[in-house]
């Protein structure tokens, strides 16, 4: 390309740029063209005169540090951020509309695609809401298994966050270490659920499969070596002066603001609010398990880092206890009208075939009513609000996605900071656009 370009330059007419005035005009025209292009594209966001003394920088949607397709427009005065405007919708697939047009069972695979870093937790959150609506009781073994699933999902999600956020501020080693550990979790999912990524493991009224001995052994094996590996990665960062300098005091949001902006999850706990749905509104069997809720008061990127690392250690504790306490028994509720039968039984048994046909074609028809059920996902409160008209399809399904609400607080966190801190703050918010854009 360079070789091609060089001759074209030499063939230019001599004296074309000979005079300063013309060159100045050209530069002005170039500026106007950029401005025009910006204005043409940014119909939704307008600035008065970005090239006067403040500059508008467009970041994303194809920027590696935005963790997906988040688009951020930042207005800069030198290197200081005057204002920031996030722009969403690049991954909007209309999952709430889709939900209104399919049965409750059919929607489970779609929940994988919301927060695609912790699909198992989304499966659990969704079926818990449907079961609450339908008034279904799930056997204890399934509840313990769901706890294990949700905590494994939290570990996987936090490991990706740890790696990418550390890489955003310049530590590449931790990315590889984080992904190495996540790979082991995905191998566990492969054995546990049958797939590595889009798990679709839960069913309404139970689970798709039981916890096999092989999967159980794999989880135990993973838990034995994970804390040490995590400690190694942690040591690389908390004793790292560059990392601390990049994170300390960056992206501050006050406690009152954090509550007012509706933040949940690690962001809220890093702002000094001891709020964790697993403890405050116990669901599944969390009331029988012992764990701490890490809280930090600094409310900056570093505090969020500490909260998430501590959470991973607590998750390990929870999974260990759940594996110890998990009782034998069935993983599906004995309610053949609403719980899908085992596939192999539908081939040989008449009753099961009828129930399978009815559930797949007409749905489970929960009673008329509306429920909201939330779990503590890895990003924060992940809730489903379902309105039922007594039909097989939900009349309305609203996803309360933590990434969407947490991203709102990005402008106040960024304001007054430096341009180089943007990636660190986005990393600390840990958004997943599949969930934010729904």
């Amino acid at each position, binding site marked *: 390309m360079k070789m091609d370009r060089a001759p074209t330059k030499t063939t230019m007419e001599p004296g074309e740029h000979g005079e300063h005035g013309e060159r100045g005009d050209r530069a002005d025209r170039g500026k106007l063209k950029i401005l025009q292009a910006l204005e043409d594209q940014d*119909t*939704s966001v307008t600035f008065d005169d970005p090239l006067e003394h403040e500059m508008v920088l467009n970041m994303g949607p194809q920027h590696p540090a935005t963790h997906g397709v988040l688009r951020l427009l930042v207005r800069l005065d030198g290197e200081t951020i005057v204002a920031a405007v996030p722009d*969403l*919708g690049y991954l*909007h697939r*209309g999952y*709430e*509309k*889709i939900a209104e*047009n399919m049965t409750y069972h059919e929607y489970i695979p779609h929940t994988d695609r919301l927060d695609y870093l912790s699909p198992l937790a989304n499966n659990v959150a969704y079926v818990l809401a449907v079961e*609450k*609506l339908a*008034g279904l009781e799930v056997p204890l073994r399934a509840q313990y298994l769901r706890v294990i699933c949700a905590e494994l999902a939290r570990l996987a999600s936090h490991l990706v966050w740890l790696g990418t956020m550390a890489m955003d501020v310049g530590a590449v080693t931790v990315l590889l270490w984080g992904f190495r550990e996540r790979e082991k979790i995905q191998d566990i999912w492969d054995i546990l659920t049958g797939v590595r990524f889009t798990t679709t493991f839960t069913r309404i009224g139970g689970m798709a499969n039981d916890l096999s001995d092989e999967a159980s052994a794999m989880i135990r094996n993973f838990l034995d070596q994970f804390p040490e590996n995590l400690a190694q990665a942690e040591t690389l960062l908390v004793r790292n002066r560059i990392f601390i300098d990049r994170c300390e005091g960056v992206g501050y949001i006050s406690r009152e*603001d954090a*509550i*007012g*902006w*509706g*933040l*949940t999850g690690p962001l809220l706990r890093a702002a000094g*609010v001891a*709020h964790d749905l697993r403890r*405050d*509104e116990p669901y599944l069997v969390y009331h029988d398990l012992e764990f701490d809720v890490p809280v930090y008061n600094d409310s900056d990127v570093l505090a969020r880092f500490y909260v998430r690392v501590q959470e991973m250690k607590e998750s390990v504790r929870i999974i260990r206890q759940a594996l110890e306490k998990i009782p034998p028994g069935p993983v599906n509720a004995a309610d053949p009208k609403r719980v899908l039968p085992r596939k192999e039984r539908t081939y040989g048994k008449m009753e099961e075939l009828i129930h399978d046909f009815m559930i797949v074609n007409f749905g489970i028809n929960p009673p008329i*009513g*509306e*429920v*909201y059920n*939330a779990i503590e996902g890895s990003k924060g*409160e992940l*809730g489903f*609000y379902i*309105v039922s008209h007594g039909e097989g399809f939900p*009349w*309305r399904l*609203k996803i*309360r996605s933590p990434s*969407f*609400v947490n*991203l*709102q*607080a990005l402008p106040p966190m960024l304001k007054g900071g430096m341009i180089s801190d943007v990636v660190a703050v986005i990393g600390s918010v840990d958004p997943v656009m599949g969930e934010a*854009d*729904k």
Partner: protein
Amino acid sequence: MKEKILDRLNTQFKDSIESVNEYRGELTIVVRKSEIGPVCRFLCDDTELRFDSLRDLSGTDYYRPHDRFEVVYNLYSLKNSRRIRIKIRVDESDLHVPSVTSLWPGANWLERETYDMFGIHFDGHPDLRRIYMPEEFEYHPLRKDFPLMGIPGSLTLPRK
């Protein structure tokens, strides 16, 4: 706790509460549309109830002749670890609802999303634009009369 919430609400807003409903342990209170601002301010500021966190705000299209839409506020009290659902009914002839962004700044995007998806206007909102769909899009996709497959030609394709 439920009685306490209802008692305190009844002393102040007896006339504005249209109905109270409990289903699966979740308290839902339907209030008059014009009173949503004062009711939310009371619930947020009251020292005993302290519903200081707006967890969710969404709309529902019931597709009926009267009071077609509902706007649902999902409030959470960090002090009491308690949830409450406030609903208002919105008729298609008057799609204007007072905004609660002055109480909870976090309502900003949630109201924008509701506007985008249902076409409900929030008066007093600082920046009421579409959030997911493009600005020139003419429809509101989560309304029941919007087809699942979309409307051909309604989305402009990018220029070459």
